[in-house]
């Protein structure tokens, strides 16, 4: 039962053949068995989950209906949860308990979803492998020697191994889509501003966006319709009506124009990944879509520009961790300066400190024009490439990541790790919606296909992803993890 999609579970719950309490218990049992090996959760909320499940069953008895009522959910540990630890994968926030819920958390509570716990992540979402987590890396359920991807690796691993039915993630440069690809699940980053960032711990504010990680595009449509919408508490959230994403999933793709960026099929792309994506394109052609090559000429500059913009914004956002109002404070500081410096140095891990320093450097006197301004100009060129491409095509398709999941500990060099995000980062710089869906396997590890849409065309992206999942079974494949005992 725990392997089912939320859509399927919702039917069982509505029919009365299953209660949310039973379902929640089943997931808690699975977590108890599997989490020690997977390290997908940082915090498990057994007691409150069962209370919420009971409440969900009561609400149903009183006539309340929603597809997510009583469905067990895991939140990435970047979303503030009232009364439950929110660590952001960092020692800095190891004991932090937010006094309020993030808007996203509130919205899921309103419809009656059940919070099972908080999932593991790279520290402050800075990483592509989950290895920068202060709490140790989450593991990939397809092979526990491999990384689950990052930064939302715990959520993706939990979905793949059925430690929850649905999950949330955040994506600044690929942090929903790349772990979804590595773990063989569906991960969707909506357009910038579509989902409120209020209560979501900030990394790079002009790039961060929350979205769902789940078992199908059909589920992603339900989750996105809950998460999306204007929020007066987030001045960057967008005042556009939320479409009925589930209603358009079955639209025909006949005549759909798919753009294939030449730049996403070049050196560095594994031949197995390339083969799977080309197979997937044939599936679309059989559905009546037309495939044309497009040119994203500045894509190779997306990683360099990102590693100025994201660290610059991070260095400003993370200046709030000073050991005064909340978070870690060092022992016996001799003076104020010593307290700031040691609290930050002991509270942050190596990757976070590196990025703060790169950002500080890029913003420091004499370097602003060469780095920050230059990067924002490149960002414009990248966005212009997409605008031009979208004059010709409806969606853009390519691989999510050039390779499948790599070994834990294999990438010691930060720059080598950064280059793994070569297909996802440009989408954040341009603020576009992008989804990763399972599209094949290489040596037992999942391959993700990346579908990019125009601004606020979430419905189209989900429609294109869902139609693929109607024709293929990749998203239904399950790792053998934990089934042997």
């Amino acid at each position, binding site marked *: 039962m725990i392997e089912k999609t939320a859509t399927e579970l919702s039917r069982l719950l509505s029919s009365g053949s299953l209660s949310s309490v039973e379902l929640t218990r089943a997931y808690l049992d699975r977590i108890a068995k599997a989490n020690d090996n997977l390290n997908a959760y940082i915090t498990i909320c057994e007691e409150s989950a069962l209370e919420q499940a009971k409440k969900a069953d009561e609400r149903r008895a009183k006539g309340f209906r929603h597809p997510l009522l009583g469905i067990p959910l895991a939140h990435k540990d970047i979303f503030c949860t009232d009364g439950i630890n929110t660590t952001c994968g960092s020692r800095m926030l190891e004991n*932090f*308990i937010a*006094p309020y819920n993030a808007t996203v958390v509130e919205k899921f509570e309103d419809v009656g979803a059940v919070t099972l716990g908080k999932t593991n992540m790279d520290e402050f979402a800075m990483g592509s492998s989950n290895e920068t987590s202060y709490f140790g890396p989450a593991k990939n359920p397809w092979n526990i020697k491999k990384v689950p991807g990052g930064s939302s690796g715990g959520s993706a691993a939990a979905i793949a191994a059925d430690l929850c039915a649905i999950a949330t993630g955040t994506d600044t440069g690929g942090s929903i889509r790349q772990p979804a690809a590595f773990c063989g699940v569906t991960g969707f980053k909506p*357009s*910038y*501003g579509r989902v409120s960032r209020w209560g979501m711990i900030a990394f790079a504010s*002009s790039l961060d966006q929350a979205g769902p990680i789940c078992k199908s595009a059909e589920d992603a449509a339900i989750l996105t319709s809950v998460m999306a919408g204007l929020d007066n508490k987030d001045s*960057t959230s967008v005042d556009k009506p939320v479409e009925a994403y589930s209603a358009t999933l079955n639209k025909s793709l006949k005549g759909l124009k798919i753009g294939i960026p030449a730049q996403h099929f070049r050196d560095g792309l594994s031949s197995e990944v390339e083969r799977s994506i080309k197979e997937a394109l044939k599936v679309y052609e059989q559905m009546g879509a037309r495939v044309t090559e497009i040119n994203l000429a*500045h894509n*190779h*500059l997306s990683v*360099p*520009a990102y590693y*100025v913009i994201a660290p610059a914004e991070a260095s400003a956002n993370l*200046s709030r961790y*000073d*050991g*005064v*109002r*909340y*978070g*870690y*404070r060092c022992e016996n*500081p001799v*003076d*104020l300066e*010593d*307290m*700031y*410096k040691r609290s*930050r*140095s002991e509270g*942050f891990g190596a990757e976070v*400190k*590196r990025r*703060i*320093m*790169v950002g*500080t*450097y*890029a913003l*420091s006197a004499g370097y602003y024009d060469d780095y920050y*301004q*230059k*990067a*924002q100009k*490149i*960002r*414009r*060129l990248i*966005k212009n490439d997409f605008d031009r491409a979208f004059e010709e095509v409806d969606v853009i398709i390519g691989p999510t990541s050039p390779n499948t999941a790599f070994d834990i500990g294999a990438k010691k*060099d*930060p*720059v080598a790790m*950064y280059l793994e995000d070569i297909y996802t980062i440009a989408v954040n*710089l*341009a*603020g*576009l919606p992008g989804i990763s869906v399972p599209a094949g396997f290489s040596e037992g590890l999942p391959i993700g296909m990346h579908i990019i849409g125009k*601004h606020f065309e979430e419905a189209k992206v989900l429609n294109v992803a869902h139609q693929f999942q109607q024709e293929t079974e990749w998203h239904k494949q399950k790792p053998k993890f934990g089934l042997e005992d």
Partner: protein
Amino acid sequence: MILDKSEVRKIAQLARLHISDADVDEIGHRIKEILTLVDQMQSVETKPVEPLYHPFDAVQKLRPDVVTERNNREELQKLAPKAEMGLYLVPKVLD
């Protein structure tokens, strides 16, 4: 790209990070690698290009200047490492 020990220390000071003598070379080396990656940006001429600070060139929304939040100082100060009588405590600043 030159990044000597004193520059690494200067950046750390600006960022209020403490770096031990043992780590300064390693950190400098890593940052230099990142800046080398970043320097690929210089390969394109961008003089006439307007910087894009926001994906949709949006500007900051304004709202009426009225109080919308309740005062929850006590609740928030419970999170502080050290607070007393409504004040955050830090090491002595003045002698």
